[in-house]
């Protein structure tokens, strides 16, 4: 008896060429999918969710597109994963990394067809990637010392990032906004402290950065709407019923009058707590949890502004801007640090009332209010702005900057080509292929803009044979332009991450010669 199968039912196995084919096809399909969103003239995609409501997202952010896809191909999953990591690590270049990995695999496929062993291709790719990184390192500009130029660098990077997004109409405005916000962080990369509030209505141009802090909450009834020189206590404590936390405690009484007594005691307890809070000498109290009517009334009587149910992020940010500490006990008023701000007032954006804390001490956090025509526009604007903020915050730490518009790819391609000429053996084919894959990126940018890519890339190549050339693709005028004059810059960290993770992913997929898919786990149908 021959052995029919050693796997469980439904499990499948793909071997050798077939496996390689399956992963190449899968990876290229993914790369082709997001390819059209690359560059300033890239197009958007509409994604419809399968969940309830069939929600629609319009985006051209690679990571967002790929995250929402349901993919069965194993190689494609690797690409989705690198795009996600790119998003987490540097925030931008999520499309480029997938496109580059896809192009590397497309070139590898040709080489495999020409009977070059995948391991040879991998070692060629490795050499090429290392060489390309060196090429970039030599060309970086670091303006960290000069605050003025550094700021303009940041603005340029923000503008370049935003130019491929929905915000490109107002990119000057948003670039300034993003740079201002990031400069406030003072080198921290924690973007949590930049709050983005989306309010439909108005136009994108009406978006603004508030140097104070805006809390999307309402002020309690009968409490002052405007406080100057506020002392703020930020708290995380139960202000509804302060339960006894000792395990197993319960109230057991035998008459109604005792119930009333206990209730009175509870009220008394709350009153004491409120008294203690008031004795901190505050005039504003912000709590993470609910505040019930009774304490709220007490606060109102004392002329204190009480804000309830500010979520975790809200109070953490508030603590950051005002410099207060988040308190949960109130027995030692002298040691609790209070937050301060010049003015608390209620403001109207659109038709919602918000509370604004301005004139804050620390100012490490800030709020960006986005306005726009519809929720979809706002969502996409938020994603774009998030990309820009991520890139900027990373650039603040690693201030090396490169030009954009296909310039880094040309530089790398040139160096890699030289290396290919010097390398003996079959590897040189792989190295050459790497440089072709790099060239694909400016080609796609040009193609997406409806330009004659073959012509432009050839011109660029010629330009780059001169020393110290700053030529890149100027999509607006449709010709080769000087990137320094046009002010198109990109962060070195983003480019490096794109290069390294794309090569890593391509290598990983190339090494595979067999795909074993287990039977999908049977899920119970809960219909």
């Amino acid at each position, binding site marked *: *008896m*021959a*052995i029919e199968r*050693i*796997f*469980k039912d439904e*499990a499948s196995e793909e071997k050798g060429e077939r496996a390689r084919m399956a*992963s190449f096809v899968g990876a290229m399909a993914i790369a082709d999918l997001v390819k059209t969103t690359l560059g300033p003239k890239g197009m958007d995609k509409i994604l419809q969710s399968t969940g309830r409501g069939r929600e629609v997202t319009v985006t051209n952010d690679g990571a967002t597109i790929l995250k929402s896809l349901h993919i069965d191909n194993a*190689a494609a*999953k*690797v690409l989705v*994963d*690198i795009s996600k*990591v790119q*998003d*987490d*690590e*540097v925030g931008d270049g999520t499309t480029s990394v997938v496109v580059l990995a896809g192009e590397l695999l497309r070139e590898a496929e040709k080489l495999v067809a020409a009977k070059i*062993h*995948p*391991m040879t291709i991998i070692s060629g790719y*490795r050499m090429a990637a290392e060489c390309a990184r060196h090429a970039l390192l030599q060309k970086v500009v670091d303006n960290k010392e000069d605050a003025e130029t550094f700021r303009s660098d940041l603005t340029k990077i923000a503008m370049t990032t935003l130019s491929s997004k929905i915000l490109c109409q107002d990119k000057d405005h948003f670039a300034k906004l993003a740079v201002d916000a990031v400069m406030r962080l003072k080198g921290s*990369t924690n973007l949590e402290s930049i709050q983005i509030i989306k309010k439909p209505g108005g136009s994108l141009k009406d978006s603004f950065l508030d140097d104070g802090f805006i809390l999307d909450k309402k002020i309690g009834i009968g409490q002052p709407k405007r406080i100057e020189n506020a002392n703020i206590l930020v708290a995380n*404590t139960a202000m509804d019923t302060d339960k*006894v*936390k*000792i*395990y*197993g*405690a*319960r*109230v057991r009484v035998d008459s109604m009058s005792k119930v009333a*007594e*206990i209730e*009175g*005691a509870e009220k008394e307890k709350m009153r004491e707590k409120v008294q203690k809070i008031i004795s901190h000498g505050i005039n504003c109290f912000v709590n993470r949890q609910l505040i019930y009517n009774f304490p709220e009334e007490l606060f109102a009587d004392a002329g204190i502004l009480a804000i309830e149910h500010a979520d975790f992020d809200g109070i*953490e940010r508030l603590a950051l801007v005002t410099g207060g*500490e*988040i*308190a*949960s*006990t109130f027995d*030692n008023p002298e*040691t*609790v640090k209070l937050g301060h701000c010049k003015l608390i007032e209620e403001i109207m954006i659109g038709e919602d009332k918000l509370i604004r804390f301005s004139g804050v001490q620390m100012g490490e956090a800030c709020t960006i209010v986005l306005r726009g025509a519809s929720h979809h526009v706002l969502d996409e604007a938020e994603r774009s702005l998030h990309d820009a903020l991520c890139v900027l915050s990373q650039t603040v730490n690693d201030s090396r900057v490169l030009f954009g518009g296909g310039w880094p790819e040309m530089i790398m391609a040139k160096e890699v080509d030289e290396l290919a000429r010097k390398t003996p053996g079959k590897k040189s084919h792989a190295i050459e292929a790497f440089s072709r894959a790099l060239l694909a990126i400016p080609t796609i940018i040009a193609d997406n803009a409806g330009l004659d890519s073959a012509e432009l890339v050839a011109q660029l190549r010629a330009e780059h044979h001169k020393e110290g050339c700053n030529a890149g693709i100027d999509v607006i005028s449709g010709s080769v332009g000087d990137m320094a004059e046009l002010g198109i810059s990109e962060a070195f960290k983003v480019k490096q991450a794109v290069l390294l*993770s794309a090569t890593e*992913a391509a*290598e*990983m*997929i190339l090494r*595979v*010669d*067999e*795909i*074993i*898919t*287990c*039977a*999908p*786990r049977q899920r119970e149908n809960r219909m």
Partner: protein
Amino acid sequence: MALAFDEFGRPFLILKEQEQKSRLRGIDAQKANISAGKAVSRILRTSLGPKGMDKMLQSPDGDVTVTNDGATILEQMDVDNQIAKLMVELSRSQDYEIGDGTTGVVVMAGSLLEQAEKLLERGIHPIRVAEGYEVASRIAVEHLERISQKFEFGPENIEPLVQTCMTTLSSKIVNRCKRDLAEIAVKAVLAVADLERRDVHLDLIKVEGKVGGKLEDTELVYGIVVDKDMSHPQMPKRIEDAKIAILTCPFEPPKPKTKHKVDIDTVEKFQTIRLQEQKYFDDMVQKCKDAGATLVICQWGFDDEANHLLMNRNLPAVRWVGGVELELIAIATGGRIVPRFQELTPEKLGKAGLVREKSFGTTKDRMLYIEQCANSRAVTIFIRGGNKMMIEETKRSIHDALCVARNLIRNNSIVYGGGSAEISCSIAVEAAADRHPGVEQYAIRGFADALDAIPMALAENSGLQPIETLSAVKSQQIKENNPFCGIDCNDAGTNDMREQDVFETLIGKQQQILLATQVVKMILKIDDVICPSDF
């Protein structure tokens, strides 16, 4: 199937519902088993050696794993056949025992089965084959001992260890920076090794991974890295000369294990219980403070009030730290794990030179580094890489390297790799075969042929002509009487493995041969397979 009848002509029931069961007997059963075993080893064959390819595995939940570690491939393969399962077990036991060579052992078993099939076709009884294999494996193991070499290393001279780890890593995807990783692995093992007793407790090496960055950023931290952050956002992010209280009791009101109820029936009781509660939190924090702690690491959660009190008293704290990590922290800092606040005393505190929080990328992820510990016997290898699969594969590779380094510390004998040991054994077994009387002689010769399979697979994966290369190397070994000639996989120009610095551990190789022989013997002894039919 044959039936037995009693004197009234009724059939005896030997197997219940016999018709519905598929049953294989005799030589058919053996053939079927052998072909199943071979099928498994065929899958792994292409993963062997520095030019071996990876496998991509998709789990039932759709997660993708890319690996060329034999044990991992087999474990995730979801195998249904019983014999195939035996092979999976085989690879796993090699993994537990040695940690490396999990692919080789399966390939070895596969080729032993292949040889057995030929012998069975000639009409040799399976038990005789098994016995022959047993004799041969003993010869091979003894021969390995003879050609093995001891080398000296010490805390200053780690080069030989690094070289051996590099051999292990060179077949993995991480071979781009095998030198760095090998050094990290060796340093980690030496940091926790007890050189006197020649023992290494691998549990003391924690391997953490986080996506992002590049493989070259992987680092060895002489201390502990915990994937947690401070319980209160405003606690200090950096503590120098920390005195750490390691607690396994929550900062929460007490919860006795016996069932109880506290009845409140008067206002006074309500008041007292309230005060008690407040005092309770106060006491807890005060006790930590009294003991002189400057950092609290707790296995459980904190109540909001307690959290603020800790913050207020300037006592940074970390909550929800896992049990294993807690133990490691205790070992590293020389502290004691304290289960009750009452038992907290200054001498039970752990000490660390520096505790700091580090954030990564654009997300909120933070990790806590505890460094410069009093007793740096616990270390962490912190892996970075481009994507999740890369990290996972690096973890597995590092694990292999750690195991190899540990084995070397236990027993510093090495044999040379690149198939040279197998070829040399094969020659020795072949020579011994002729001296052996009886039918086993054929089995022993079969064993020698089977040993050739590993160098053959190596050559094949490296794109060389397998038979040509193998015969050339073999004749060279005999001619020069040099057991260190192997397959030149990396195209380095020489096939003397001493010059290429390709080492493997002696016990790893011996285990491979012994384990593979054992499993093959077991498979050969099966002559009847009964399995319930599908229903």
